[in-house]
């Protein structure tokens, strides 16, 4: 079972929830940080990293001698990563999406595959927890291919809990794709409400059941609750506004370790998440 912890927006407590959930999970689990722009899960789980792989993407390398400047490559390239200037061919590796089109169309065999570094995939152990993360190179703009590289190392023999990137654009959708349950972390404020609506809209095409964790309850207003009730989004957990939680987080501690009274709460969250997944599997069987 693969579970994604997502949020329409950063700062809602996604990593707090992911870290606590992983800690109380009572089956073999793999914790995966796919927020590759700002991977923070490791700061809380403190895994011992034992493996590292540099992730590369294929980009074209031009051989000026063979090139006849016909322009076939720049014509197919949709990302302005290659252009022919007079007799010369110029490549812009940072724009390249690695589709391989230019290499495939070049009639002269003037392009050969080269690589660009996207970032790294790291893995290791935090006690019993299998840990995996991606980290984007600073200055690199394309996160989905790095996420795909990290996802190749998902352990199918374990339950997988993914800390997804914030937002609702293509990196977030990429991280949440192919999961069995999506947990949306939000806050009961106008910002939280607006971003929750966007997240639900963005992830609906994926088809996985969604549930909501409302963080910092007791502040803000009713918008999020009304929306969940009206649309049938189950509220899986409410975490009260508690300054101790913010302080534990600021010390790099996982709340279920720092504040044991939260353990039952997160155990309950894990069983509700499993119920959601089971219900969906049953529905699939009768469909």
């Amino acid at each position, binding site marked *: 079972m693969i579970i994604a912890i997502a949020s329409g927006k950063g700062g809602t407590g996604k990593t707090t929830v992911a870290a606590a959930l992983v800690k109380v999970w009572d089956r073999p689990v793999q914790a995966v940080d796919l927020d590759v722009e700002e991977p923070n899960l490791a700061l809380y789980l403190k895994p011992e990293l034992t493996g590292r792989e540099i992730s590369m993407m294929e980009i074209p390398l031009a051989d000026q001698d063979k090139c006849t400047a016909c322009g076939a490559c720049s014509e197919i390239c949709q990302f302005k990563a290659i252009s022919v200037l007079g007799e010369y061919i110029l490549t812009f590796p940072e724009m390249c*999406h690695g589709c391989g089109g230019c290499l495939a169309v070049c009639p002269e065999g003037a392009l050969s595959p080269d690589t660009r570094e996207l970032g790294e995939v790291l893995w290791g152990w935090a006690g019993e927890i299998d840990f995996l993360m991606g980290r984007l190179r600073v*200055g690199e*703009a394309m996160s989905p291919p790095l996420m795909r590289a990290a996802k190749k190392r998902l352990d199918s023999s374990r339950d997988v809990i993914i800390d997804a990137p*914030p937002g*609702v654009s293509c990196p977030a959708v*990429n991280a949440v794709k192919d999961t069995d349950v999506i947990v949306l972390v939000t806050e009961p404020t106008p910002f939280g409400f*607006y971003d929750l609506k966007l997240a639900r809209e963005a992830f609906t095409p994926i088809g996985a059941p969604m549930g909501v964790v409302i963080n910092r309850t007791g*502040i*803000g207003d009713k918008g999020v609750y009304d929306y969940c009730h009206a649309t049938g989004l189950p509220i899986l957990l409410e975490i009260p506004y508690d300054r101790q939680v913010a*302080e534990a987080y600021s010390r790099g501690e996982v709340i279920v370790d720092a504040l044991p009274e939260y353990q039952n709460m997160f155990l309950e969250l894990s069983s509700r998440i499993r119920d959601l997944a089971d219900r969906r599997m049953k529905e699939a069987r009768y469909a």
Partner: protein
Amino acid sequence: MPEITILSGKGGTGKTSLTAAFAHLASNHILCDLDVDAPDLHLILKPENEYLEEFFSGHEAIIDQTLCTGCGECIERCHFDAIKETPDGLVVDQLACEGCKVCVHFCPADAIEFPMRRCGQWYLSKTRFGPLVHAQLFPGEENSGLLVSLLRQQARGMAEKEGYDLILSDGAPGIGCPVISSLSGTDLAVIVTEPTPSGTHDLDRVVDLCEHFKIPVAVIINKYDINLDQVRTIENFCQDHHLNLVGKLPYDHAFTEAMVQVQTITEYQASGLADEVRKIWTRVETLARLKKAA
């Protein structure tokens, strides 16, 4: 005309609430919400849209089932595994398609269409604090970098034409493509951070990015009183990197309460937090004008 961009690296640090307060305090300025993925500034500023335009970017592949022979050439060619065999024939998974045109080019039956992709909408609006340029990307779309550049161009064009002398932008979160687009050519990046391990970690990464693009940086620590040790770490970090620390704000519900009232903190309060925010704004504005002049 200086351009100030408020960033945070990590979300939820209070970036938008501060931008809104600065919008209240600044004069003769244009506002820009560059967080096109999950824009929130409009929730406080309640803009009246005066102009709307569709945003198209790139293309999407669509297989015409009446022409497709099912040869599978496109599946072979697609580097993004975006084409799937279904009971209804070969179908492009739009969430995975990068719009690279490779399948279109190589399809022997000419069965793949390649229309423009409608990715979102952008607006010019009026608010109680002056004009606002903003957008909403449709959920799941990419290329927010292009949309961010477009918004900045619009804001700059309008500022020049109508004689505004400051552009204030709520930047995109993260350090990826949209942030890079919100930074290039800005005169001052104001980074709002908080004293948590992830806050400092993300600060480090955004500062890296700003240094890479040679953008001057000012730092604000929000919720400073939740962890004074981390605050010292951030202060040392600022010193080592020659960054201007322009202010510290305590953890305070007033930000949320103001938000619920659809107000900026400086409208909501006459003193307290609002005073601090006012002082910070004066420093930020002075710094931006100095950097612009330099």
